[in-house]
């Protein structure tokens, strides 16, 4: 199909756009600190914890579940990369490509079923140890 509007737009315009974005961000981050007030009081350098004096470090350990989500994300995001390549070449690949991606997605669906059955996606723990923090 012929493009209705043939754009003669240069790709380098994207670089110009980035330069202007960076200028705007720099203005936002550099100028306002010069304009604002400055004060130091007794509690200025305390972390905000709803009025309670902070104890201990905020570099806490987080639940391993978050790490698990990160790993699962990697698996499925790489899958996405393959599916993207298939989607854009869809018409040329035809039924053969469809069957291949069907098997590929089917295998990942099996992975998803496995993860779900093994409890990797469960965020509610039924143990008496109680609720997780975040």
């Amino acid at each position, binding site marked *: 199909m012929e493009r*209705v509007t043939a754009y003669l737009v240069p790709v380098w315009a994207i670089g110009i756009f980035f330069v*202007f*974005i960076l200028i705007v961000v720099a203005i936002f981050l550099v100028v306002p600190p010069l304009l604002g007030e400055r004060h130091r009081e007794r509690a200025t350098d305390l972390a*905000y914890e709803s009025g309670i004096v902070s104890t201990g470090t*905020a570099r806490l350990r987080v639940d391993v*579940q978050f790490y698990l989500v990160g790993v699962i994300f990697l698996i499925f995001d790489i899958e*996405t990369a393959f599916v*993207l390549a298939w989607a854009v070449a869809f018409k040329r690949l*035809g039924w053969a490509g469809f069957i291949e991606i069907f098997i590929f997605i089917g295998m990942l*669906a099996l992975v998803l079923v496995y993860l779900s059955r093994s409890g990797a996606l469960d965020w509610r723990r039924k143990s008496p140890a109680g609720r997780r923090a975040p």
Partner: protein
Amino acid sequence: MSPALSVVLCIVLLVILMIVGGLLTWVERRLLGLWQDRYGPNRAGPFGVFQIFADILKLLTKEDWIPEFADKPVFVLAPAIMLVAVVAPFAVIVFAPGILITDLNIGLLFFLAMSSMTVYGVALAGWASNNKYALIGGIRAVAQMISYEVFMGLSLMGVVIIAGTFSLGEIVERQQSVWYFAYQPVGLIIFLIAGLAETRRLPFDLPEADSEIVAGFHTEYSGMKFAVFFLSEYVGMTLISALIVVLFFGGWMGPFLPPILWFVVKTAVLIAFFILVRAALPRYRYDQLMELGWKGLLPLTLLNLLATGAVVLAIGK
């Protein structure tokens, strides 16, 4: 298109985005007020529209405080990453014939790549603040955003299959007869939900759930850096709306009115819809959010993808 015109368009687009971001802070509060039977900000100027300037002036004169205990370079860098990541994708959006920065042949991929950069902004902000609320908000945000990112891209592949291209300009032109929301209703709904989760808006605002963790990842931010986070939230909402218009609602297409006006009207309606969602729905619980994503929407997206592929092949378009 001449180089000078490109530069002018870049500047105009940036200025408009900043104005829209500021304007939306007021529009959102007014619309929420309307839907919740109260007024919202209506004191400064006609309908309270000067509230924006009042807010900007206030934020400018506030102390731009960097905590002593924070990881300072990262603390400053985080809002910058956020803003760049939500503004940059506008470079590939085709607003109307001739009104665009550039029309990359991998436009959709560019959008997905840039918009997933916001995860870094949120994660680094939460970590660098060295505050427990911020840490919890940041870690929640990362898990939520990467979970929904998986099928955010996949939900758009139905459109790519039908159009056969990643170029946003070409996708719009293919919608001359039928807008793609008719072919891809499931894809549209999944992308809408994923968009809400990616911009961390209600009902998925767990990373900044005010009533649980104060303000989440931006608890320790103040002054203009705080404003930059807000600005990027609203620009992000505009971005998702603009992309939905381009991919599902025919972009600039429409009768009578000039193309650019159609684009603006459609985007504005979608933004209003996003605000209505906020007014209407309560916040999800975290385990519900994750289960909805992994066990509900991800399989549904894959199914939609395969079904779309099979139907398109069977019809033999």
